[in-house]
């Protein structure tokens, strides 16, 4: 069993885009990782808190490796992590993930269709693997 550095958690920062299908996919994937797949190794930080400059959220991001999930090319999650003094260990764009899973077409906003849910899960599975790599390294991983 992999040894986990429990003093640090991988921060997951999804898109905050409300009313956007890809934003919803990003948040569903983040929930899957932080609540289901890797709850002990990860921590969810709302992008809106970083935008507002909340001190605790900024501190968490600044002291832990982050995985960002962006819903569009504006890449707000990635930009805000960097602006908050954090390090992006891995960044995902939902559109690029969808291109790898063409059969999982996401639709819906408040509630995703089946394709969207499966796409979110596929993305969450990928993120979980990255989390494992980061937590195994014990120092937050290679933040390239």
């Amino acid at each position, binding site marked *: 069993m992999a040894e986990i550095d429990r003093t640090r958690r991988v921060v997951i920062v999804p898109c905050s885009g409300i009313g*956007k299908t*890809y934003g919803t996919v990003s948040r569903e994937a983040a929930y899957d990782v932080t609540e289901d797949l890797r709850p002990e190794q990860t921590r969810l930080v709302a992008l809106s808190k970083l935008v507002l400059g909340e001190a605790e959220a900024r501190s968490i991001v600044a002291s832990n490796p982050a995985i960002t999930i962006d819903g569009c*090319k504006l890449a707000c999650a990635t930009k805000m992590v960097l602006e908050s003094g954090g390090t992006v260990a891995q960044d995902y764009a939902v559109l690029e993930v969808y*291109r790898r899973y063409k059969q999982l077409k996401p639709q819906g906003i408040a509630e995703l269709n089946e394709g969207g849910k499966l796409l979110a899960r596929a993305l969450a599975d990928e993120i979980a693997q990255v989390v494992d790599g980061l937590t195994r390294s014990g120092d937050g991983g290679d933040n390239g």
Partner: protein
Amino acid sequence: MPDYIEFTVDKFTFKVAIDRYYSMEGLWVKREGNNIRIGISDYLQQRSGDVAFSEVKPIGTKLAFGDELAVIETIKVDISLSSPVAGRVIELNPAMQTTPEIINQDPYGSGWLAVIEPDEAYAHVEQLLDPQAYFARIKHEAEREISK
């Protein structure tokens, strides 16, 4: 690099290349010798959003005017694009298979869709818009929508 005419509405700037014609739905048509290269206007690509997938009819496909030439799937919509000319598809942009986002990045250049050998070189050209007419059309449309 073609020359452009452009306008800005809100935070968006739309360019219209002046060296080609346009269909009503926003495809550009550029004559190259006896053939016609086709792509998507800057206005249409910006309105439609980031392109996820692009499927263009295969080489050899014979198209009548108005037949479906391509389907573009973006983060917002799926668009069926009608051929602005009658003819046969003779060349496809290989980037559509691997990096269709090039439509968003360079709509008037490397983001082209297909080359068609037209049945008649000037068939249907009267149904296309010159750059100034297309510019006026989309400017009116954009300004009307932003004022809603």
